[in-house]
């Protein structure tokens, strides 16, 4: 079983004409195109995120759309919602509760480099408190100074030990080494390998073991080769087959309690 723990989907806009091509040079996929691209790569299940983290006024509608997507594709797609850390604390609590009091969403995703927020804020503490209450993970774009470096993600996991925290890019190309001596002490921190170089993936595995690592491609709205590339990198790892199975899917299943 392969679970891609990092994918994006295009959410149709209300009353806006879609561009012919998205920023990745691809047509704006519908759900059929999205599923076909993962079928082609033999991916069984996906964590799914929007790809628009800039315009906060859209987030409630996106959350509703993604929740319906999760219900329509139960057992196949596991969407994550988003809130704006600059909303009032009352509104943050209200939207998170709306997201998780009914089924469909499985966690929250943040892209601090786009949203322009620090993780060391009262608002993000409230996010952690609410997500911990619902036992859902918080997934971060990371590897980008100044808002979401690897040590900043590790800080957030340390600050909120009861919250499941996922580094979405494993620190990207240059900051992954900061997880070697932080994630080992943080049982609640998981690392998605969509980012480190091949040697970084190998080193993270050798130091941290297989249980914290997740395969993720950051694919879904781009060329399907995006997903193929990261499957190749996981398969190329110097690791026993059983450990690769954990990384390719079993760890993600355990994290979201997917049967």
């Amino acid at each position, binding site marked *: 079983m392969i679970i891609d723990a990092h994918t994006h989907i295009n959410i149709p806009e209300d009353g806006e004409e879609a561009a012919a091509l998205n920023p990745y040079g691809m047509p704006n996929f519908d759900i059929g195109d999205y599923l076909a691209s993962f079928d082609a790569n033999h991916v069984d299940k996906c964590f799914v995120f929007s790809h628009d983290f800039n315009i906060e006024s859209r987030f409630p509608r996106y959350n509703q759309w993604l929740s319906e997507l999760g219900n329509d594709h139960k057992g196949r797609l596991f969407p994550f919602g988003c809130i704006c850390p600059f909303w009032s604390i009352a509104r943050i609590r209200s939207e998170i509760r709306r997201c998780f009091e009914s089924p469909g969403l499985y966690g929250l995703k943040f892209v601090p480099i786009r949203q322009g927020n620090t993780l060391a804020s009262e608002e993000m503490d409230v996010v952690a408190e609410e997500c911990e209450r619902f036992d859902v993970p918080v997934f971060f774009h990371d*590897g980008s100074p100044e808002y979401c470096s690897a040590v900043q993600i590790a800080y957030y996991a340390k600050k909120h030990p009861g919250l499941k925290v996922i580094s979405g890019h494993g620190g990207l190309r240059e900051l992954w080494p900061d997880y070697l001596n932080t994630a080992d002490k943080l049982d609640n921190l998981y690392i998605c390998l969509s980012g480190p170089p091949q040697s970084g993936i190998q080193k993270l595995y050798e130091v941290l073991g297989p249980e914290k690592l997740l395969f993720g491609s950051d694919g879904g709205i781009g060329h399907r080769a995006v997903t193929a*590339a990261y499957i190749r990198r996981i398969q190329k790892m110097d690791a026993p087959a059983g450990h690769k199975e954990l990384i390719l899917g079993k760890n993600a299943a355990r994290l979201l309690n997917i049967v």
Partner: protein
Amino acid sequence: MKMIDSHVHLGNGIKMQLDEDTLIKNMDHAGIDLAIACPMDRYLAVYNREGNEFIAGAVRSHPDRLMGMASVNPWFGKAACEELERALSDGLSGLKLHPVLQGFRLSDPIVYPLLEIANKADVPVYVHTGTAGIAEPFQALGLALDFPCINFIMGHAGASDYYNDTVRALEFAQNLYIESSRNGPANFCHWQINGAVDRVIFGSNAPEYHQDIEILNILDVFTDTAEREKIFEKNIRRAYKGRMPL
């Protein structure tokens, strides 16, 4: 079509290791005809002469399979200039700069004396990019504009976060190329739709990445034969002004 890997590291570093026999074996497996090697980690940062001599020795051992770039840390000043001149006269064919490991901003004039030597020797300069504030694509562009006769290779094409800056930088300098390592199919598509294929040069950054896997990832996106010829051979030949053993 010849397959040329424009960027590999050789040596026995603290963080990485790759010996020439393993590299040649990996090249054979991946179908690579020629690789351009440079020193790695501590040999980029401090032990420049040892690193350059090691690369020059590997090139002499495999003259039909390897070329080499010298690297010197600009903080060594006059000694760095002398070592660069020595290494270039010892068979190395370009200059590699790594602002992160060598501790300078790519836009710092401290590097200019080295670029004057590269200019005089008429060799290309490879610069690491992708690190915020230290090694950004527009800093590489600044060098390319100040030294219009040098061909600059933007290492890693600004990966991860600078993919937009990277293609925009190309608009302003014809002597600027982008090297593919640390990138994947998403950015390959970005280069393709932004008309950058004439400047893309394949590099694996081995041993950080496996050459065979990175070639497959490029072939997945660039399916046109003419595009592949540019990325794997023609563009790097142009950057080196045709001075290659093949």
